């Protein structure tokens, strides 16, 4: 998971959760406080209203008591008309009554400020009956007066004469719209609730459940309402709750309504209360629609905050992750060998610092890399130059080699041609000389002639040898010398050679010894003629150097130390060969410059031919330098034991 994704996955739920929690707690607390505020407010309103009502009722009680007690209405000297005018003027001053009536002791209405229904008898009416008893009376339930056709609260009091005799009753009709007016002007002490709106349902009920006033259902006035009855019985509103003691904590959340009631309690001063109860209800739906609005607003605000937070988180995540991604990309590029693209991250934080340091590193690497490249380039060009020089040198050498080879070939050709051309005249010359020496056809030669011819003959022979040797060497060099190799038993071979060798030294006083130490079953693959030639050459060579009388030649044949070849040795008791000359002896026309040698014949090619033959058999030839009492030539031929017998005709 990328850093950005991690940040987003962690931060967004975190922000969501915290905003949700804050909003939730806020809304819950707000709702609760609103609720309790409203209840408290409703309580205060209820108490205030009831207090106001009680004071109003007290004033009316005071009015009727005053009318009962003063002497005007009972004074026989004052006419009824004057009494009525007095009452009218009082009405105007008090501004509270629809009318004030005077009844005589029999219950007949004798006077009325409105001059309505004079003469009617209300003796049986409760207000009259109560007044007769000497009490100040007020009706606890408004009554419909016949005279006014209005609902009024009747305040009645007896009128007594001078001698305290009962004269009649005074009745003041207090219209219920005056009560309405009290409730019309509800004052919200803390302005927390809109008491004049239709949200508050206000019911003033009497103790028997009759609705005296209702601000929302005027038609219910002076009727009972099951809804209100239920409310009263359900919550057992006590009519004797003490208003002064502020004992109106009947705030009950009744379903969807907040509900508060207040009773009249003890009334106010002389007014002892009519047992009325005030019920205030506020529809929670209406109240909480405001709350709902606020909740909606807070949800809206929260949503915006969340959106802004998400954007900020995305920005932060981007701010954090982009440089890292960029850096990572650059690192990957660097890993692939791109040292040139600059790492540019404009950030002042750790990542920015990291990027800067990394860029410094990149620059260093770049420097080192370019230095290395330069160095490699230099070396490469140097090598290239050297190579070119070598190549040209090699070309020269090749050219030179070619020239040399050509020269060599020319030389060989020359040699062969010369040998051949030399040999050709020699054969007839020798033949003729042999004829002369036989002295048959040419006649007898004198001694001198014979001696001279003999010299010529011997020199011709020598020349022929020389030419033959030269031809052989030439053939060896060009690989045209033919070998007819066969498996030969060493013993048989050596017997043959011994026979040949002894013929070679027949008249010479040379002790020739053969020591064949090999196994009788040892074979070698060889051209017997050529091996004989080798021995012939070596023996001839020894014969040339051994002392004339005490010459000694020893030929030994034995297994070589390596066990894989046969070692053939030819020793003599001649003067020996100086160590420094030993290697040169196998070169063409090389002879040790001694008087002894010159004395003897030799082409200087014998050893060269031997070497060629031996090497053509896979062996080696050398001079045994440890042998100091004479010369010792040693050569080896590979053992061919176990190889199939039969002839091989090999051309080297």
């Amino acid at each position, binding site marked *: 998971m990328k850093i950005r994704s991690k940040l987003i996955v962690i931060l967004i739920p975190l922000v969501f959760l915290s905003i949700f929690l804050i909003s939730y707690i806020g809304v819950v607390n707000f709702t609760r406080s609103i609720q309790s505020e409203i209840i408290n407010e409703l309580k205060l309103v209820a108490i205030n209203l009831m207090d106001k009502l009680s004071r109003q009722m007290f004033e009316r009680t005071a009015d009727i008591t005053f009318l009962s007690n003063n002497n005007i209405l009972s004074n026989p000297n004052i006419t009824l*008309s004057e009494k*009525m*005018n007095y009452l*009218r003027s009082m*009405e*105007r001053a008090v*501004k*509270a*009554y*629809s*009318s004030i009536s005077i009844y005589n002791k029999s219950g007949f209405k004798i006077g009325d*400020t*409105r*001059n*309505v*229904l*004079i003469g009617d008898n209300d003796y049986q009416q409760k207000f009259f009956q109560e007044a007769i008893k000497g009490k100040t009376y007020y009706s606890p339930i408004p009554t419909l007066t016949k*005279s*006014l*056709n*209005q609902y009024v609260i009747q305040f009645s009091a007896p009128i007594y004469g001078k001698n305290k005799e009962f004269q009649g009753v005074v009745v003041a009709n*207090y*219209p219920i*719209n*005056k009560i*309405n*007016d*009290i409730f*019309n*002007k509800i004052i919200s002490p803390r302005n927390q609730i809109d008491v*004049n709106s*239709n949200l508050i349902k206000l019911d003033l009920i009497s103790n028997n459940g009759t609705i005296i006033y209702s601000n929302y259902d*005027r038609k219910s006035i002076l009727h009972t309402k099951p809804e209100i009855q239920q409310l009263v019985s359900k919550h057992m509103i006590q009519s004797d709750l003490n208003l002064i003691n502020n004992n109106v904590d009947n705030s009950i959340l009744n379903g969807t309504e907040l509900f508060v009631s207040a009773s009249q309690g003890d009334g106010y001063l002389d007014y002892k209360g009519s047992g009325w109860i005030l019920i205030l209800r506020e529809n929670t739906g209406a109240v909480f629609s405001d709350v709902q609005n606020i909740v909606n607003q807070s949800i809206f605000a929260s949503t*915006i905050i969340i*959106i*802004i937070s998400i*954007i900020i988180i*995305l*920005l932060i995540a*981007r701010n954090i992750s982009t440089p890292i991604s960029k850096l990572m990309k650059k690192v990957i590029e660097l890993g692939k060998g791109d040292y040139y693209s600059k790492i540019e991250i404009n950030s002042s934080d750790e990542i920015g610092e990291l990027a800067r340091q990394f860029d410094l590193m990149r620059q260093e690497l770049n420097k080192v890399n370019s230095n290395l490249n330069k160095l490699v380039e230099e070396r490469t060009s140097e090598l290239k130059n050297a190579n070119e020089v070598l190549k040209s040198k090699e070309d020269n050498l090749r050219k030179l080699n070619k020239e040399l080879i050509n020269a060599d070939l020319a030389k060989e050709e020359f040699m062969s041609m010369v040998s051949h051309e030399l040999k050709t005249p020699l054969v007839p010359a020798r033949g003729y000389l042999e004829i002369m020496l036989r002295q048959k056809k040419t006649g007898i030669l004198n001694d001198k002639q014979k001696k001279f011819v003999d010299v010529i003959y011997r020199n011709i022979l020598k020349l022929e040898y020389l030419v033959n040797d030269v031809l052989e060497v030439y053939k060896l060099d060009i690989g045209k010398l033919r070998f007819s190799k066969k498996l030969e038993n060493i013993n048989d071979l050596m017997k043959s050679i011994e026979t040949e060798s002894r013929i070679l030294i027949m008249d010479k006083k040379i002790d020739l010894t053969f020591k064949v130490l090999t196994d009788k079953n040892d074979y070698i693959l060889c051209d017997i003629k050529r091996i004989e030639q080798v021995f012939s050459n070596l023996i001839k060579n020894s014969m040339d150097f051994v002392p004339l009388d005490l010459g000694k030649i020893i030929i030994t044949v034995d297994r070589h130390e390596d066990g894989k070849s046969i070692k053939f040795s030819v020793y003599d008791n001649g003067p020996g060969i100086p160590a420094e000359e030993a290697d040169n002896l196998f070169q063409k026309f090389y002879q040790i410059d001694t008087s002894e040698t010159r004395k003897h014949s030799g082409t200087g090619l014998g050893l060269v031919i031997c070497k060629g033959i031996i090497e053509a058999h896979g062996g080696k030839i050398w001079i045994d330098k440890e042998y100091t009492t004479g010369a010792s030539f040693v050569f080896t031929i590979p053992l061919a034991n176990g190889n199939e017998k039969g002839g091989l005709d090999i051309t080297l």
Partner: protein
Amino acid sequence: MDIKLCYFFISAIVILLFCNHINIANSQNVNKPPLKIGLTVWVPNFLAFVAQDKGFFKKNGVDVNLTLIQSYNDAVNSYSNGDLNGVFIVYSDAIIQHSSGIDTKVVYNVDSSYKADAILGNGNNLTDVKGKKIGVDGINSLSHFFVLKSLERVGLGEGDVQFVNVPVQNITSELQGGKIFAGHVYSPFITDALKKGFKILSTGASVPGIITNVLAFHSDAVGQRPQDIQNIVKSMDEAKKDYEINKDQDISIMSKMSGLSKADILEGIGNVKLYDLGYNNQFSMNNHLNQTTSLYKSGSEIAKFYAERGVISEYPNISELVDPVFVNALLKLNNTR
């Protein structure tokens, strides 16, 4: 996320929020609901139908929703409940509404009862009722006040007659039964009483401005939409003027809209005195005039009467109730043209 996209989102939210506020601010001007006006079954009120039918309201750029309400009390209740923005109402009831806490503005005096209210009875003139019983439609009501004001003009007081509470429709029968000597009767019951041989002892014309009909609005409607109110007043004045020119046509409109016969319309209008802007300015809304043709004067007297008899608890401030601004402004406009 592209940074430009982020900026776009943020600015979109900000703009949305601002738009929201602007909409709320503008909505009051742009999406005004029509002003709801209640009409009671009182013929002069039907001039409003003429104003509507002839497009005076529309011409003056005011959207009005007229509702004819058969029961007068229902109309008053609808007004006090706030279901109506305005109502054609008897002035005394406007005073009661206002003093009972429903802030009201009387913006136009439509008419006054001349022959629509009368005291009928036996005898030849009003002084004959002294010491007799007189029927009124409600003790301490406007009817009561009208009779008292009429009696006052002939030097009689409350103590000189006996009052009997008789609903207006029963006056004739009570007169016939001899239970009362005279009574307050108003249109359309006058015709019946006259037919029965009772005589008119006094009419509304004797106490002008006592029984008078006004156009009243809730104060908040007047405060929020003064131009609309002014245009309504203007339209009403135009309807009155139109009626003078196209009487038959307008009677047809009023008959059609109200369901009353043309004869009833004609009679209804004939019983009153229709007022125009000029009258309103000169009399009805003249604060300095010390006669009941001034709403200020009649209002004070009605209020005093109601207060003394416990009908209302507080004297209303008549200067707050009567709002001559629109009448004056329109008159000024008319004069400058």
